[in-house]
């Protein structure tokens, strides 16, 4: 751990109707894995929301993040700020909104 490493925290609401289902999870993990920083995600809307690894698709599915839930994305490492911003933006924009994501 160097002194340059910092933790960033962003909170974002799930905007899309289908919630954080498989395809958005894959997009999230794919993006998170491009950063060196550790990524921890919590669904703060659920009581006792557990901390999961934002780079693990299986763990991300445990968040059960339905539309309207708030995710706390905490990043820690050399590119923490860029990671937190990019991931928050992905969630905010509804994961690029697939045309069929409502019916999937």
């Amino acid at each position, binding site marked *: 751990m160097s002194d340059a490493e910092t933790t960033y925290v962003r909170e974002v609401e799930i905007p899309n109707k*289908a919630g954080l289902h498989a395809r958005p999870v894959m997009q999230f993990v794919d993006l998170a894995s491009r950063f060196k920083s550790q990524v921890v995600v919590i669904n703060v809307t659920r009581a006792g929301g557990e901390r999961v690894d934002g780079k693990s698709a299986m763990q991300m599915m445990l968040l059960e993040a339905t539309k309207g839930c708030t995710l706390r994305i905490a990043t820690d490492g050399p590119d923490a700020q860029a990671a937190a911003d990019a991931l928050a933006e992905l969630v905010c924009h509804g994961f690029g909104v697939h045309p069929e994501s409502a019916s999937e």
Partner: protein
Amino acid sequence: MKLSELIHGPSIIADLQATDRNGVIRELTESLAEHGAIQQEHVETVVRATIAREKSGSTGFGKGVAVPHVKHACVEKMVATIGRSSHGVDFAALDRSPVYTVVMLLSPQDAQDDHLAAMEKVFRCLQRETYRRFLRQSETREAIVDLISEVDDAPSS
């Protein structure tokens, strides 16, 4: 929701014959119909929709596990089944590894939240290395059914 209530025991296949993704999806869908979990007339629709879903993004979550799924109007009640492949199937998984355990999940069209709850239940089990290993080693349908009851009875992690 219990895993044993979600997973339709009679349609579980302990030794998948199909060796490719689309074949596995068809084999599991036909088993669900054969054992009365879905209507026979919906088999083609479900197979097509599930493959289309898979093409829009793999459900191979890594570590030998895939969860092909679809939300469709022809599905009346959420239902899932499990297929075990001894040879491994290419699902274009996240980690490129072959898939040995396939959990197929069918949900009604507008069951967004129930669908996520079911996925949570499935991955609560599959994220554990022990359960993945047991599933992969289960050579009979009964062994898989037993394992699911065991998961339900185990204290949640």
